[in-house]
């Protein structure tokens, strides 16, 4: 009974933060709507084509990035590769830079009329940039799942096959849920990303919604165009239910895992490979940006950036903490199915994630912009709550999978000892999920820190974040200042992340 009340409480909080803005937005979009206009909008050839093109693009990006990221995650977590922490820290940089900056970087390198321009401007160019941007996600997820594999499962296989056989038949199947989860997350992220498609002139579905806001100020059409995202959310959930849940195995987190020792040749081989890889995906496109940085511009930029940077940290750290807490508690409600409508709760959270940030932002404005709610709307709280609404699915899915892997014997033992559901949550589930919670915090922080679309719509006047500041400076700002600001943004994440990695927190 108590559990049920608690679950209802969590759902209520999430409703306030995420679902209510969505409902208000939908009400606004659908009220006074003419059925013919809706049909006309969705019957347009360009809209239908862009929808299917975006589905294809997202599937390709999700699959390729996940494949590559999982391979790298295995290298970093499962072997004694010497520079793994450094490379992981470097590989998250593309995630921190506004994606269209990477696209502009590639335009700088390849040009608009070279042999490769035809490849860059269109499907392949957009796919390439998005693969580079989202690569860190499968890397982190696979590292997390690899560390859940009990050594004896692999040791058993070692009696019959070599290291590669163990990897193929035991390790990879056991991290398959990470692969699928990564695919689903990246699919959604790619589908709703519009800035790269805009720069590289690819006709994506999310761009349709964006243009209706930005050029036409047509809220209704823009919001209507986000409704097909419901289909995407439903598809994602179906795959998750059909595959991931079935294949999540209950197990305790082992203290140690088996590490594959690489020979000196292999160490050298992977080092060279990764240096080339980092050069291609990071240094090349960002060179034209960072080459403008001078000490003087860095000092000047730091002076300008200090206040926005502080805002970025306050908003992102608060949002990350709230996301970790609410994400875990929501995952708890979903995993243990305390409410009969848990599927809708789960689906709603995923739908929020698929929605274009602009649409969600407008929903927040429509709901919270009332005089009596000024203490929320006219303060940093609105930004923090918006980040929570947007990224809750990330936190929930990562926590959910950990909870579903928890052996039921642990919970039963707690019950037998007289623990209440709250004691079980507090003393068993949360400590057992410590590593995942830390990963959730880090991922939530990174996503919140880099976010600009929602922030631009909601930040209280005079309190912009660094990501917003960089974008507003890009209009005729001095290139060396913009470069220096971008460098500050990157270092603000990479340095603490690297320290985190060194302390073996992830």
């Amino acid at each position: 009974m108590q559990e049920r009340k608690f679950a209802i409480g969590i759902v209520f909080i999430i409703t306030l933060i995420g679902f209510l803005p969505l409902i208000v937005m939908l009400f606004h979009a659908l009220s006074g709507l003419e059925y013919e206009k809706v049909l006309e909008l969705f019957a347009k050839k360009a809209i239908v084509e862009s929808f299917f093109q975006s589905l294809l693009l997202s599937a390709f990006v999700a699959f390729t990035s996940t494949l590559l990221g999982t391979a790298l995650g295995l290298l970093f977590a499962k072997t004694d590769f010497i520079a793994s922490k450094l490379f992981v820290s470097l590989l998250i940089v593309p995630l921190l830079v506004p994606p269209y900056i990477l696209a502009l970087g590639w335009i700088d390198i390849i040009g608009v009329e070279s042999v490769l321009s035809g490849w860059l401007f269109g499907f392949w160019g957009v796919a390439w940039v998005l693969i580079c941007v989202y690569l860190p996600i499968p890397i982190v997820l696979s590292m997390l799942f690899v560390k859940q594999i009990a050594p004896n499962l692999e040791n058993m296989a070692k009696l019959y096959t070599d290291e590669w056989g163990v990897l193929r038949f035991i390790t990879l199947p056991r991290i398959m849920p990470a692969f699928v989860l990564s695919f689903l997350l990246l699919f959604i992220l790619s589908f709703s990303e519009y800035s790269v498609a805009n720069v590289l002139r690819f006709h994506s579905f999310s761009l349709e919604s964006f243009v209706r806001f930005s050029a036409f100020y047509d809220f209704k059409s823009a919001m209507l165009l986000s409704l097909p995202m419901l289909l995407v959310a439903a598809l994602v959930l179906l795959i998750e239910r059909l595959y991931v849940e079935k294949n999540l195995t209950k197990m305790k987190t082992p203290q140690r895992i088996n590490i594959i020792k690489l020979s000196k040749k292999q160490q050298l081989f992977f080092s060279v490979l990764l240096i080339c890889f980092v050069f291609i995906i990071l240094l090349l496109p960002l060179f034209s940006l960072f080459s403008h940085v001078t000490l003087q511009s860095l000092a000047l930029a730091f002076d300008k950036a200090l206040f926005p940077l502080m805002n970025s940290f306050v908003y992102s750290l608060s949002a990350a903490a709230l996301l970790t807490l609410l994400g875990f508690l929501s995952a708890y409600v979903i995993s243990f199915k305390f409410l009969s409508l848990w599927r809708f709760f789960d689906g709603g959270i995923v739908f929020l994630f698929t929605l274009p940030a602009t649409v969600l932002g407008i929903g927040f404005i429509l709901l919270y912009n009332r005089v009596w709610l000024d203490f929320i709307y006219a303060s940093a709280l609105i930004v923090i709550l918006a980040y929570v609404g947007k990224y809750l699915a990330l936190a929930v899915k990562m926590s959910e999978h950990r909870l579903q892997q928890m052996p039921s014997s642990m919970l039963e033992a707690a019950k037998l000892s007289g623990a209440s559901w709250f004691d079980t949550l507090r003393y068993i589930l949360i400590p057992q999920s410590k590593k995942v919670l830390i990963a959730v915090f880090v991922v939530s922080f990174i996503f919140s820190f880099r976010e600009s679309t929602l922030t631009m719509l909601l930040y209280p006047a005079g309190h912009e974040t660094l990501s917003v500041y960089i974008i507003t400076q890009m209009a005729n700002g001095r290139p060396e200042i913009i470069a220096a600001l971008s460098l500050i943004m990157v270092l603000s994440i990479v340095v603490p992340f690297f320290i985190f990695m060194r302390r073996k927190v992830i």
Partner: protein
Amino acid sequence: MKQIASFIFVALLLSACSKVDDGRSVTVYVSEDQVFSEPLLKAFEKETGMHVNAVYDSEESKSTGVMNRLIAEKANPQADVYWANEPIRAEVLRKKGILAPYKSPNAAGIDAVFLQKEHYWSGFSARLRLFIVSDNSMKEPSSVFDYANAAFRDGAVIANPLFGTTTAHIAALFSTLGDAQMYAFLKNMKQNGIAIATSNGESADLVASGKYLFALVDSDDVASRLKRGEKVHVVYPDQKAGEVGIFVVPNAVMLLAHAKHPKAAKKLIDYLLSKESEAALAKAACAQIPLHKGVKAPSFFKPIEQLHVMHVDYAEVAQKLMQLQPSLKEWLAE
């Protein structure tokens, strides 16, 4: 866990208290580039002792920005003043009932064509729509219709016509010359191999790098490339008698309806419309053209009195723009 929970609580508490609202502040949403507008707002702060809370905008093609925020906040406006970088947005807001009229004493001396009849917005410090032309170009464009001139086939670029001043310019041409002529022109432009850039800035860079011969951009884009010493020069389009004239894009400043700080808002509007502000914006890197007579124009450009200017009704242009956008979108997709 305890630490996380405590951190949330303290951070949220601090966040909730972060809003500055001491009665001596004004909130302004600004679509003029932050690098140009911020120094002027800081100067206002210094002069008046008032605190300015600003929300700046990005290039339209990069994010949805300030306009959508203003429209969505209509029921409970957070902004007191909106500083738009062109009057079309002002007209969109006026039609949506988001503005309140205010006749600033500092608007006196500005040509009536740049002021809204009922004083819902006032224009100041304008940009001109000019050609940036590569020094390597053998032939000089003289009219916007040179985009369809075979002599410039595959040699011209224009910014995305769905956003910003390019859209406004096209809408102005439509309202001046009529649909038939303009649709034909758009078709011919495409057939003549026109390239599309994401922004005026990108167009200017493409011409400066020699990839294209000319582009129609804003005067501040030209000024910045000239300052950098790029191999480009200015051409004022359609200056001959009988030609359509140059399209002027003034900044527009306006008071929001139900503003929380109306007195402070009016002070800011007066300040922005002053000759001193126009002089500052003329001297700044944006090199904007003063609309008050007697205020010195930037050295790169002719004063507005010496130019054949397109006479438009910005309200009509705004209306035309809204009608045109679906067909511009289709034109772009072709």
